[in-house]
């Protein structure tokens, strides 16, 4: 086995070579997934908290559907966004198809149910502990949402990371709505698919190693931050 067939060697030369095309791909991957997770969190955190606090008819159905959507296949999400954004589709005039924007939209749809469903669980258990005290203090339900979200912040960090894991790992949705266009919508996962189909397995694996390392790094950072804060706050 020659050195160039070794995926670790390939990964290392890619990183050390500071290849600007690799850099672009990594940057776009992170950009799309981070923006998608940020937007999804903005919507899903209050949504999950509201679902934890409010009792309304059909609530259980909503919870079951949300939990089921956690397993939504990325290709299905991609297909739906594709149909919405294609020229003939209802949002075709936005001209988003085959742009990073479309990829963000697809990933938001994938990540939102995960963050909302897990947030609901976290907030519901915290609310059990806080309910009487907050009620006694005269805190209104709408005001409870930011209170509980803030006090559950360390658990919710893990929830957001789960969403980020989903976004950065999926390939089906970004492939369909992005189109894997070189220099425009090519991200790590779609490159890996492409290189695999071309038979360039060392490069595909090398890219995989870089992707895994990046995700590990982000998770490690979040873990350190939350452990330090937990120790400080008890």
């Amino acid at each position: 086995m020659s050195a160039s067939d070794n995926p670790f060697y390939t990964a290392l030369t890619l990183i050390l070579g500071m290849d600007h095309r690799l850099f672009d791909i990594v940057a776009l991957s992170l950009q799309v997934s981070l923006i998608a997770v940020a937007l999804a969190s903005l919507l899903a955190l209050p949504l999950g908290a509201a679902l934890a606090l409010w009792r309304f008819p059909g609530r259980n159905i909503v919870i079951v559907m949300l939990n089921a959507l956690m397993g939504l296949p990325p290709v299905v999400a991609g297909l739906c966004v594709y149909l919405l954004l294609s020229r003939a589709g209802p949002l075709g005039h936005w001209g988003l198809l085959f742009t990073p924007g479309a990829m963000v939209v697809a990933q938001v749809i994938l990540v939102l149910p995960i963050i909302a469903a897990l947030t609901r669980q976290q907030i519901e258990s915290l609310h059990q502990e806080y309910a009487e005290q907050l009620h006694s203090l005269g805190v209104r339900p709408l005001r409870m949402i930011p209170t509980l979200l803030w006090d559950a912040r360390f658990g919710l960090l893990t929830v957001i990371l789960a969403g980020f894991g989903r976004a950065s790992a999926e390939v089906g949705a970004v492939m369909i709505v992005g189109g894997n266009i070189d220099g425009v919508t090519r991200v790590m996962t779609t490159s890996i698919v492409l290189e695999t189909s071309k038979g360039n397995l060392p490069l595909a694996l090398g890219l995989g190693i870089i992707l895994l390392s990046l995700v590990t790094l982000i998770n490690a950072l979040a873990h350190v931050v939350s452990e330090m804060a937990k120790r400080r706050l008890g």
Partner: protein
Amino acid sequence: MNVETTISTDIAPLHFDQVRFEHRGHRLLMPTSVTFSGCRRTLIMGPNGAGKSLLMRLAHGLLRPSGGQVRWQGATPVQAMVFQRPVLLRRSALENLTYVLAIRRVPRAQRKARALDVLERFGLAALSKRPARVLSGGEQQRLALARAWLLDPSVLFLDEPTSALDPAAIKAVEDAVNAFHQQGTRIIMATHDLHQARRLADDIIFMYGGQALEHTPADRFFDIPHSPEAAAFIRGELVW
């Protein structure tokens, strides 16, 4: 003396009219009629499971009765409650207090100064930046009392606030209860500690098996209780 009587008439009396409470088919509170009035320290006594906490939660509005009526005669006064195990937010001691002021719509600029003032009063000033949940049990309960103090309540409910504390911490809590009382706050407190009741009570409600068996002035209660259960409880016999 004169001051005290004017204060005491200010707080609306709280009436329980045949209030009962059921949960999943179990009757936890028999139809009960009591009145809390004036600026007294009423201690609710009785063994565990007698319904002391239940009575207070109904009075404070945390639970709705299954039947009967809990009624304030007049405007509902400002109330606060201190629980057996204090529920503190996952924030610093100071932020636990400023949070309450924010809820009460106190202007942001005044919150910190007022909170520090109260921390000082309860001997917690040095701990203001410490996370509330790493404080000791006694400090946590004092912080809960400080939080109640900020609300300036007319009625303060306390649900066995000293049951998990050491003697020094118990003393601090009882001093705080008396400070509230001297400010003109009606105290309604559950305890199963006879000595504590002797130290604090103006009148006693004795509960047993989901019933309020008697509501009498403290000295009468300890000298001549009229229910055999209360008499046994005072003698220190195990009743349940």
